[in-house]
């Protein structure tokens, strides 16, 4: 579980632990991870390992060796990590752009790539990626974030195609609003989902050849509408 210390990642980790899965958690801060890992191990009597890693400087080989050492060969890989910044609009500092790209896209590609051979022919395996409805159409706000998430979605599309003759299944979620710290206090134009509800649906879908879907599904209508908007109208929207 990459991005496991808070929000959706933590909720999925809990849902998996409740279903009896042993877990290996990855996030940036050891203190947060240690607390989540202890809680899940104690409450659900499962084995939980963890490794603190800054995804901007990810080391897939080290991660693979840590996972194997702790739990053996994994069945599922979840890339839930994501980061966004309010200043992600127009020209932004290079280090901010690099971080957005690394956490939302390149680290995901590199980590999945590192585990791909291990997972490909495992009939119990799933690779799950989390994208965003923000990536449905390029716009002023969240420009690098949206681009990175679109890149991640494209990579998962290729993964699904590559793995079609293999046993491993691929699921990718274009996630709508979630009740997390990121959306706290914001006046959102559409309802937000509880991370626990999203986590339950994601876990229910394990084993399915799902491809890329919206979560919740009704976001499909909204993103479709946005994509179909003629440019003369879309260019005037301040979104």
């Amino acid at each position, binding site marked *: 579980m990459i991005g496991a*210390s*808070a*929000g959706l990642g*933590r909720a999925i980790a809990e849902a998996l632990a409740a279903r009896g899965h042993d877990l290996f958690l990855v996030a940036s*801060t050891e*203190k*947060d991870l240690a*607390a*989540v890992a*202890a*809680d899940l191990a*104690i*409450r659900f009597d499962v084995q939980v390992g963890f490794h603190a890693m800054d995804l901007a400087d990810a080391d897939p080989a080290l991660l693979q060796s840590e996972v194997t050492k702790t739990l053996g060969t994994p069945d599922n890989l979840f890339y839930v990590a994501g980061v966004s910044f309010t200043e992600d609009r127009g020209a932004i500092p290079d280090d901010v752009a690099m971080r957005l790209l690394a956490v939302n896209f390149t680290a995901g590609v590199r980590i999945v790539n590192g585990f791909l051979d291990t997972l490909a022919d495992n009939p119990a395996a799933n690779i799950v990626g989390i994208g965003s409805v923000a990536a449905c159409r390029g716009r002023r706000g969240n420009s690098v974030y949206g681009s990175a998430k679109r890149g991640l979605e494209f990579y998962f599309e290729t993964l699904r195609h590559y793995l079609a003759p293999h046993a491993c299944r691929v699921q990718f979620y274009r996630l709508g609003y979630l009740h*997390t*710290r990121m959306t*706290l*206090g914001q006046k959102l134009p559409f309802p937000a989902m509880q991370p626990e509800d999203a986590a339950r649906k994601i876990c229910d879908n394990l084993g399915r050849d799902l491809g890329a879907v919206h979560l919740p599904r009704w976001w499909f209508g909204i993103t479709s509408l946005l994509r179909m908007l003629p440019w003369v109208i879309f260019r005037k929207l301040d979104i």
Partner: protein
Amino acid sequence: MNTRRLSSLDRHTKLTCDYDRPDRFQQLADGAASNRFIARGAGLSYAGASFSENSSVLDVSRFDRIIDFDGSAGWVEVEGGVSLGKLFEFLTPRGFHVPVLPGHPQITVGGCVAANVHGKNQFSEGVFGRLVQALTLFHPDHGTIRASAQENPEVFDLTVGGYGLTGFIMSARLTIEPLPGKAIREERVPVANLLEAFKLVDRLKADHDMIYCWNDLARLGKDAGRGFVVTGKYVTEDQAEDIHGRSVDGPEGSPTVQYKRLDPSAIKRRPNVFSNRAMPWVNRLYYRMNTRHIAPTTTPLFKFLFPAVGKEFYFDYFGDRGFIELQVLLPAASIEQYVAAFLTILRRHGQPIALATIKAFHGTPHLLHFNGSGFNFTIEVAHTPENMALLAELDELNCEYGGITNIIKDSRLSASVARRQYPAFDAFRERLHAYDPARRISSSISERLAL
């Protein structure tokens, strides 16, 4: 930081506050470094313990992890944001319990430590602070501190029952005990008036694990304070099946922990059901409903321990004006005279009381802890100018009879009354200032009481 309109449970204190809900340790530290702050758990204190318009309110509900557990040694270490419901869900199937629990499962362990709360068994189990073996505290000026009776005892002493004014309670190691039974054998005994209720609670407490009394003070005739004493005794699985012929919640079963979340800060229309005219009829109905069948029943543990569950509507029924709770700990020796004086004042004011309860207490007063020996007597009244005058007079009565008012329950308690009632009021304040000269942590309670 966002702003949010926050309300105390009694809806007497409503403030617009800077609000954040960090979900990582660094975010919590950053939030505390920037300004004055106060930690917020479930936000269910009757008074404004977890917010102030002068502080950043840092909601610690995401810090709700169980981080260590040793059943054989009898302790569990949990983060401050762990709710009692989550703890119940974890401990009950493992055959353990936290023997001191206040009335709603949403309340957090951090809140229980900060307010040093009590349950329905204070006379035998004491207050929550008794269970706290050690704490991990975070204060931006002191960093992370491990505190117990042996390690940093001054900080430990100030934090247990310190109303959250010493820092974030990051974790607490709590004593847990084997669960004595898997259900509660509940009995109700009607009482004719208020004085009889005090006497019966005193008499029955020795034979029961838990006890409280509900009294009807909405009518102020000869039978003012009539009601019923509720007693509870843990029963074993065999006894439970004997009584009901069916299994009940317990260590072997799946505990019932589903409950409606209580959010006094939620913006919604609230009907004013407890008008002065309606209150006597509401109470009469409640009395009848609870005394019609008084045969012993077996009640699931969760339901008995958290009686507010399923009755959340009650807190809404005072309308947007809210209510005030006055909870006072009275010495047993002068209870007869107190009851007479209390009823005289009540009759003179002529204001109906929405709810009155009695519990038995046994303990030693310390700092600002609501602890000591005698009776815990609670009344709730609608927030009206007439009732504020009544409560002011009752404050004087309580001072006269050596009562102490529960700070966490009363959102209008003044610093002068608290100082008269708590002999260690100034000592606590001085020690708090010595620990935190900048007084970085501030709540509506601490500001009202000038702590």
